[in-house]
């Protein structure tokens, strides 16, 4: 039995006379200790899919979620409020794109991690020591001193490390990283991806990495699901998808990335009409 499974997930938003079908029937599974990358362009439904896993979306009637989400066999869509609270953070934790908007500017980073630890791991007595260890685990030098820093005193890369420390402090089984490096410099991006890879190995947790950038997927994710306009158009082992993409959308999305040393005259672009035709013939 997979740790997490999603079947025929559909998510729609309703505002007055407007309906947006953000996710139109998506299925995937995540085994314990594995890493799944969900790759797609903005608006394809990656973030709402991620948020639905612990029901972080608006309530009906503004938002409707159907299908099945199972975590360790339990039906997430049927959980009561208390069980949901336990699921969030403790079992499934998130890291988002903008660390600066996820951190509270008026509290030290240590205090923010401590709050999450007290909530989810009440059995831990020496919270401060636990917080310092969490910061050391994400490569923050001098954690014993740094935990008293305020978010604005840290660089973007350091803030993202703090967010990862906060997510991991409660030892979740799944880490959902939604565009964790999109706002960072390439050199810092590489450091954060390397860090996530090390942490995945040392903790044995599962990771869902959400990104619009195929480049960071290789060498990190075991499997890839490619999302396009609310659908998963192709999924499979990372190496296979990257070296032999079958769906024209996957092919186009890989082709349009500038390659170092390629000296191409023009970049490839995506022919959305051709992809719409390919999707129709498949149905």
């Amino acid at each position: 039995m997979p740790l997490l499974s999603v079947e025929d997930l559909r998510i729609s938003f309703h505002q007055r006379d407007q309906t947006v079908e953000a996710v139109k029937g998506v299925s995937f599974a995540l085994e314990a200790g594995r890493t799944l990358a969900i790759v797609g362009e903005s608006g394809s439904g990656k973030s709402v899919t991620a948020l639905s896993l612990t029901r972080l979306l608006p309530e009906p009637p503004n938002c409707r979620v159907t299908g099945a989400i199972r975590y360790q066999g339990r039906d997430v869509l049927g959980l009561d409020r208390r069980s949901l609270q336990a699921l969030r953070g403790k079992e499934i934790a998130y890291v988002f794109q903008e660390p600066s908007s996820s951190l509270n500017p008026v509290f030290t980073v240590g205090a923010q991690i401590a709050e999450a630890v007290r909530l989810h791991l009440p059995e831990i007595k020496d919270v401060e020591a636990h917080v310092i260890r969490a910061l050391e685990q994400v490569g923050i030098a001098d954690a014993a001193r740094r935990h008293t820093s305020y978010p604005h005193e840290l660089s973007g890369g350091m803030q993202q490390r703090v967010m990862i420390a906060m997510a991991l402090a409660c030892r979740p089984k799944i880490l959902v990283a939604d565009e964790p490096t999109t706002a960072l410099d390439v050199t810092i991006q590489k450091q954060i991806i390397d860090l996530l890879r090390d942490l995945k190995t040392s903790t044995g947790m599962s990771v869902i990495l959400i990104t619009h950038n195929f480049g960071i997927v290789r060498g990190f994710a075991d499997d890839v699901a490619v999302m396009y306009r609310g659908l998963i158009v192709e999924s499979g082992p990372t190496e296979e998808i990257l070296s032999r993409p079958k769906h024209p959308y996957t092919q186009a999305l890989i082709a349009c990335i500038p390659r170092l040393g390629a000296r191409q005259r023009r970049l490839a672009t995506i022919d959305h009409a051709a992809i719409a035709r390919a999707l129709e013939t498949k149905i």
Partner: protein
Amino acid sequence: MTDTAPVSSAPLLEVENLRVHYPLRGGLLRRVVDHVRAVDDVSFPGARGRTTGLVGESGSGKTTIGRALIKLAPITGGSIRFNGTELTTLSNREFLPFRKRVQMIFQDPFNSLNPRMTVEAIIREPLDIHFPKQGVAEKRERVAGLLRRVGLEPDHMHRYPHQFSGGQRQRIGIARALAVEPEFIICDEAVSALDVSVQAQVVNLLQDLQAELGLTYLFIAHDLAVVEHISDHVLVMHRGKLVESASAEEIYREPKADYTRKLLDAVPRL
């Protein structure tokens, strides 16, 4: 061109020993305690009709160089010559004609367009400043032509920025920059916030416009792969200093600076 243009093989832009040092104030009296050497002794040519790429991590001084070229950053020292004319000693008034010839496209199409202005008003604003005598109908015709040129519909001029996607907003930014028929465009992280597929479209558009209009670009980005793709010549900045200056091919094949190698290593391989 009215000024006595030197032979066209001379670079359009010549930057020599450019320095921009911001004062750092501290203490109760807010005295100057030190300086941030945002740009420190940087020299490079901007070849006419070509693209010079400027790469480096955030805080390395890329934006400051771009802003210094249009007198939006305080120049501490050095020289900037545009088509042979020294810009650093010009008064604001003497600089105005150059302000038209050098335009800037910004990173964030979401923040750089006034949300309360229609697309027509946004693109017409520079025309009003630099072509005050042109009539309303003529300007509207120009706005329509510019929108068509960047791949949008003339009808779009009546809409507001929030009604467009990120890539479309960047096209609006490009149309606005093109409105006054500049020779030189500074693209400051102009494609960095876009999806790769949209980035590809905008990069192709910039290259088409360059081929058609003979534009010279300074293309600023922190992603070396896109800089290497679009540029003829690449400048690598690190902490305010220029650590490497070489052709796009050399940068990739035989990087000389350690820092360039570090940047190359950080680019994900597909």
